[in-house]
């Protein structure tokens, strides 16, 4: 089991849904995708690198015949995969505190979902529907979502600045260099080994 790799935690969760409710959830996701402003809280939280929700219709589990028996279920299932920075408790707490309306909109169609507030029954529910990761890989284990965003800002600023750096007089360089510093100064945090968490 390896839910953690460097600064990223892999969460897997699966919840049952009555098939007729699935269509409501699909509409919710359609609207969430179409209205970028509704994703703003998720973007602002800025500790999720990638996340996805996947609905498996009750008769759509892959089937190849032979000795395999077909899985035909009563419920559709909602799979949730998240790659986030920080600990499990920090993640659930932040989700509950900041995104409670959004979470309720997504998971209220799942059986026995208690709501994301208060947080204690919510954590109990997540713990019940979560299953562990067997292998977890990240191409940049020392970087958080914010580190990656910052690194691209620094790269862009350097690409813009390099022309001025090599052609101007020292005084012109100094002026452009200070502007470059102002652009990147908040984006130079050290990446490195992750702290030990559980």
């Amino acid at each position: 089991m390896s839910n953690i790799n460097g600064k990223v935690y892999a969460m897997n969760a699966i919840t049952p849904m009555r098939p007729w409710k699935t269509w409501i959830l699909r509409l919710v996701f359609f609207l969430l995708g179409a209205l970028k402003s509704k994703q703003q809280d998720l973007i602002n939280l800025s500790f999720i690198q990638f996340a996805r929700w996947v609905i498996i219709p009750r008769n759509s589990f892959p089937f190849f015949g032979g000795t395999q028996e077909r899985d035909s279920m009563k419920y559709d299932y909602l799979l949730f995969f998240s790659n986030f920075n920080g600990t499990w408790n920090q993640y659930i707490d932040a989700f509950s505190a900041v995104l409670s309306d959004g979470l309720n909109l997504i998971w209220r169609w799942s059986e026995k979902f208690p709501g994301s507030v208060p947080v204690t029954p919510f954590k109990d529910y997540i713990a019940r529907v979560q299953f562990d990761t067997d292998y977890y890989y990240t191409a940049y284990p020392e970087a958080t979502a914010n580190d990656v965003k910052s690194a691209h800002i620094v790269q862009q600023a350097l690409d813009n600045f390099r022309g001025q750096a090599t052609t101007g007089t020292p005084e012109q360089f100094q002026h452009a260099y200070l502007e470059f510093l102002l652009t990147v100064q908040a984006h130079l945090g050290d990446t490195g080994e992750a702290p030990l968490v559980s």
Partner: protein
Amino acid sequence: MANQNGSVYGLTLLCPILNDEKASPSHDLQIRDYLSKLTADSTSPFAIAPGTHLARIVVMDDVVYVGMPACEEHLKSKYLVFESNLDGDLDTYLTGLATTIPEHIDAIWSHCTGYPGCADKAKFVQYMKNCQIETTFFFAAVNDKSVPQTLTALQTQRAVAQFIAEHQGISPAETQRDFIEFLKVLDAAPPLKPAMNAPSRDIKTGGRNE
């Protein structure tokens, strides 16, 4: 298409694991045993194969029963779940896996029903696609950068921070001269490999949050 967010593709596979009562240990345990020995650093198969930002492999034993009044039900097969966040085109990515790390892919997926092996790449790609579940909603914090671009940016960020820290209070002419040299060194530096630990930065920045 919800599998795609910008230039990043969200691949979700559910591959049924062979259900053979005579197998000992069972196929799911053999997969878990293999995965437990697989490295996740720069020698990882996914660091060798191109295009993976983050990926996970999970043996899903069963669905979850959440308690009364919900109905209790169970899967007839266990499923191997592969979740990958990758660059670009799915066919290219899957072919890349079959080409660069076939021994690992075969060792893991040979415990799955109907798996044809990596040798026939067309069949392999088709099998993986048959196991694919469409992503309903896919979120990516950064959705317009490839793995090499992100690794280069992280390397640049580290080098720039080091340069700035070492050039405080130095004359403009000297800073400019060093900066031009710095750009040459940075451009010539070998690219950071995926999942490779970067060298520790030799400066102490301090602060409560560091």
